């Protein structure tokens, strides 16, 4: 046992292959859904302005044709992952295309998009195509029946980190002691059959908050432990279907329901694959094609890595997981209330933690003429962008800079732009979030703490401090 068991011991390649198929499949579905919703146009073609990530200003939309092509490449790559067809190329292309799209505009940031980027990065590294794939049909010398156990365990670890950090993030006073924001969100679905009427009760919100925190913190351990695994998976399905019914969170529940199957045993995945092969052979017979899969006999070959390859992989993975552990904790380096400033908020698996709404008015003053006016935000931003911008200080600054550029183009060389941004957090009364006296054109972007964010009056000291009204 020991580390060797978790890293280099040979395990069946079936779980990895199944993971590849399921992840590829759900990505194909997600991309088709995204396109059918018209979001490629809506989010990446229509807007005039995009909120770039600091340091990634070079990631810009590729124009209408370009964006549709990029999604086409992404979709084909997802199919390639699912079928294991030119898998490595597909995985690399998918990772690049997906991450590029996500980096275009932080308005669209979702933790589950980040999750997809990370999983597809890990998929580049693992040999998920060397079993039950079109690649092994194409080149039978690729086929192996076992893989080093680390290739499966890194996926388990990654999923575990996601859940665990999501659980940790819920250990805050608003979530636990005020049942916020669920108290605000649940009644929205009071019209649902059966559970609907229960959602109007405050106690239901508490029950959901505590259950949710408990689930996120411990589900992975119950999935890892064989005697509890089946029950835990029932809980996974119930939990995610419930969130899918109650909240508008798109594909995320289904992605998680499929991905968590990785915790199941080798035998389970081998049986699944046997079923799929059976299904395929029926199709193949119907098409009167005799393919290798119908009379499949697994070759007893295992995959071993060269010394230099293992060294490189070790470095990459250690670095990756070190970042995965540290990045969600970076908030501790900033003063103030994390939910208010959102400094160090993204990329930390903080899911559904706050109800934030805002209204930002930008006051412009032409220092040469002394004239002042207000900006019609909606003339520059899509409704979604305006909504996201009005609660997030870094986006407010970016928008102010964008306005400054626009006015410069119109020949107004020296304008002052001040933001009057009222924001409400978890149902409390709205307060000013940005110092309304600060000329934002004089402030710069960056990772350092932004002094022009007004402190949150209820809780200035610590993230875990009292959040009471």
């Amino acid at each position: 046992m020991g580390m060797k068991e978790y890293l280099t011991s040979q395990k069946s390649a079936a779980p990895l292959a199944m993971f590849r198929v399921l992840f590829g499949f759900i990505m194909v579905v997600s991309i088709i859904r995204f396109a059918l919703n018209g979001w490629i146009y809506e989010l990446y073609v229509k807007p005039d302005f995009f909120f770039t990530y600091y340091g990634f200003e070079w990631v810009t939309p590729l124009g209408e044709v370009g964006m549709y092509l990029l999604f086409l490449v992404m979709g084909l790559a997802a199919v390639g992952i699912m079928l294991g067809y030119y898998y490595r190329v597909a995985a690399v292309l998918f990772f690049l295309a997906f991450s590029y799209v996500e980096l275009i505009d932080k308005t669209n940031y979702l933790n589950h998009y980040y999750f997809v980027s990370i999983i597809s990065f890990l998929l580049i590294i693992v040999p998920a195509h060397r079993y039950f794939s079109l690649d092994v049909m194409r080149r039978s010398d690729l086929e192996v029946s076992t893989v080093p156990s680390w290739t499966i365990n890194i996926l388990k670890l990654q999923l575990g980190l996601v859940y665990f950090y999501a659980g940790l993030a819920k250990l805050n006073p608003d979530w636990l002691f005020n049942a916020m924001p669920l108290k605000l969100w649940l009644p929205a679905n009071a019209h649902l059959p059966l559970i609907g009427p229960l959602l109007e009760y405050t106690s239901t919100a508490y029950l959901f908050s505590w259950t949710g925190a408990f689930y996120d913190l411990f589900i992975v351990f119950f999935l890892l432990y064989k005697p509890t695994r089946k029950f835990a998976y029932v809980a996974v399905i119930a939990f995610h279907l419930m969130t899918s019914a109650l909240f508008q969170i798109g594909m995320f529940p289904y992605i998680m329901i499929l991905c968590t199957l990785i915790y199941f045993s080798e035998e389970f995945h081998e049986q699944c694959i046997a079923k799929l092969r059976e299904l395929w052979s029926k199709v193949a017979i119907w098409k009167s094609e005799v393919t290798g899969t119908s009379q499949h006999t697994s070759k007893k070959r295992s995959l071993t890595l060269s010394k230099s390859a293992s060294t490189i992989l070790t470095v990459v993975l250690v670095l990756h997981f070190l970042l995965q552990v540290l990045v969600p904790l970076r908030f501790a380096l900033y003063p103030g209330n994390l939910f208010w400033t959102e400094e160090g908020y993204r990329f930390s698996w903080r899911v559904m933690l706050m109800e934030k709404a805002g209204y930002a008015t930008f006051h412009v003053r032409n220092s040469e003429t002394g004239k002042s006016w207000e900006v019609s935000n909606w003339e520059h931003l899509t409704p979604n962008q305006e909504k996201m911008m009005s609660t997030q200080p870094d986006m407010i600054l970016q928008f102010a800079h964008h306005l400054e550029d626009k006015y410069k183009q119109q020949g107004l060389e020296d304008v002052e732009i001040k933001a009057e941004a009222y924001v409400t957090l978890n149902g409390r009364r709205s307060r000013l979030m940005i110092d309304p006296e600060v000329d934002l054109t004089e402030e710069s972007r960056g990772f350092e703490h932004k002094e022009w964010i007004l402190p949150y009056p209820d809780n200035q000291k610590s993230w875990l401090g009292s959040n009471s009204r």
Partner: protein
Amino acid sequence: MISHIRPILTVALLGSLVFLGSCKSDSINGGENNFDRAAMLSNYGNNTILPAYLNLQDATVSLETSADAFIEDPTESTLSILQSDLKAARLAWQEANIFQFGPAESVTLRASLNTYPADTSQIKSNIESGDYTLGTIENRAAVGFPALDFLLHGIGESNQEIVSIYSEGELAASFQAYLQDNITFIKQKVDDTATEWSADGGNYLATFLSEENAGTDVGSSLGMLINATVLHYERFFRDGKIGIPAGVRSAGVRRPVATEAHFGGYSLELALANLEAIQRLFKGAGIDGSQDVGLEENLEALDAAELSTEINTEIDQAVTALEELNDPLSGQIESDNEPVLNTFKELQDIVRLLKVDMTSVLGVTITYQDNDGD
């Protein structure tokens, strides 16, 4: 659903129950929310929205009748009746313009009836050529109430002069035709919307009151009503009626011609009627003066009585500020814009109360666009 995940969640359930027991004060305070949202929606549907459309429909019938009478016999007296019927219709519109969702959205009621300032050169060229289709995008500012405002108040210096354009002018017949076509256009749009809402028509009222739309999620009746109200308040009331003419959106350059009833000179009266309609909506007061549950009570039931009071106070202050301005608003903007800008600020304070504080307490999301969250 919860019962299926018994093995794992029993502990959590027990833990939470124990916890809830110890937190009694909070759950009494937060309360099981007994507010009857369905009753509020029913009040809005039956006593505010539908009657608003029916009143507007009546007003457009009168408008059509008096226009026919004027064309039959163009005199200063028939003109003045027509002018006052136009004003009555525009005032009735102030009760209905808030609800741009459902049928009103499908027939693009607001853009058809009230895009201003009117494009007077487009109107003139339509009349001269006699070749026009009302309802196209290029004619958006050549139709509706603002076009009537121009046709009945703006084409001559005096009523006498206007009458002569319709009676003995070179293009008298063309002016008459355009006037009538435009009124028919308005009436058609209003009829379509009112019929769609009515029980003996499309019965959108039933959809609005249906159980499946009784939540506060995206697409629910309350969600649509709040989104429509907030959007209307922000863009079409605060900006359209006050902010834009006062120059708030044009780098400080005043635009008095952009007032709602520029030629008729009663823009403020319309603005005031609109704000009062918004206030009645908040209070749950029907058009006929009936009083029932509204957003005010909904906020109170959600422990936000303070917010509710503040919204009422701020609206009262805004009403007072509007009352202190003088019609014609364009004249006030030209001669003394400072009070108009101050009124704009009063109106501005209400936006955040409605759009941020109120929606957050109600659990309604401002979503003018469809997207996933997490």
